[in-house]
């Protein structure tokens, strides 16, 4: 991964929300950052290719469209970790998946278009992996503001 430039940091720190909805949004943001539209587009392309950014665009809240999402976990035997990762990640309903240090060592978010989709996805993962899924639906949300400034 290449080193982040000052311009990259400025882009990342200023573009985690409020991207404008107008005819030339990149031009509008570039002007605010004091760079050209062309440079902004080039840097975004680079940051996405280098996986410094995982995505650039609208973040949808599936629950507001009648869908559902939950956090779930598996306790995967170490010898089967790669195989189970492939099985779980193959489902489009798996939005994120993280390895964590714990007996429950795989934590993923399921996002489905319907309420019933969650139970289907859980059943599918249990069937495919032969492991019990621990489901942790949120009962209450206290805070969500996933914005982090660059630190390097």
């Amino acid at each position, binding site marked *: 991964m290449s080193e982040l430039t000052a311009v990259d940091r400025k882009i990342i720190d200023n573009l985690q929300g409020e991207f404008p909805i107008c005819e030339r949004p990149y031009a509008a943001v570039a002007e605010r950052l004091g760079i050209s539209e062309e440079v902004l587009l080039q840097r975004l392309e680079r940051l996405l290719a280098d996986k*410094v950014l995982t995505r650039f665009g*609208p973040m949808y809240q599936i629950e507001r469209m009648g869908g559902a999402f939950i956090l779930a*976990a598996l306790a995967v035997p170490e010898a089967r970790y790669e195989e189970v990762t492939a099985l779980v990640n193959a489902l489009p309903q798996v*939005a*994120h998946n993280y390895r964590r*240090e714990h007996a429950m060592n795989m934590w993923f978010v399921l996002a489905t278009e319907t309420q019933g989709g969650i139970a289907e996805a859980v059943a599918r993962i249990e069937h495919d992996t032969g492991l019990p899924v621990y489901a942790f639906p949120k009962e209450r949300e206290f805070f*969500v503001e*996933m914005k*982090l400034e660059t630190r390097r």
Partner: protein
Amino acid sequence: MIDEIDRALIVATQGGLPLVARPYHAIGEQIGLPGEEVMRRLQALLAAGIIRRIGAVPNHYAIGWTANGMTVWDVADDQVDALGAIVGALPFVTHSYRRPRALPAWPYNLFAMVHGSSRDECAVKALEIKALLGDACRANDILYSTKILKKTGLRIGG
């Protein structure tokens, strides 16, 4: 609730916006809508909270936040909502939820995500949470992530 045109718009944009000068017009061409209509609908989805925000999603490891700890707490049921709100308001907590326990394997009902440049930094933040929870907290743990296995965000069918 969304209609079929919104749905087509979501399918066309859930993977990201095109990196071209007029991205909303480019999406419009793709799904057969005028650019103005794409913008009007995105604005409405944003106002309805169906779009949480529009922007960049960084890989937090790549921007220097190399330690990521999911702190989990077993908090007395009659105090978890009040304390959860206080924990969620801490500036370093990026998301916080109350979730059901899965006894006996999982006794924790409050989750708060903390990030840092090191595990020590996360541990210090966890101590701050612990101090706030006081006697209401019976047990706690911190689960560090060691790898992003997938991070595509949501995908609905086309």
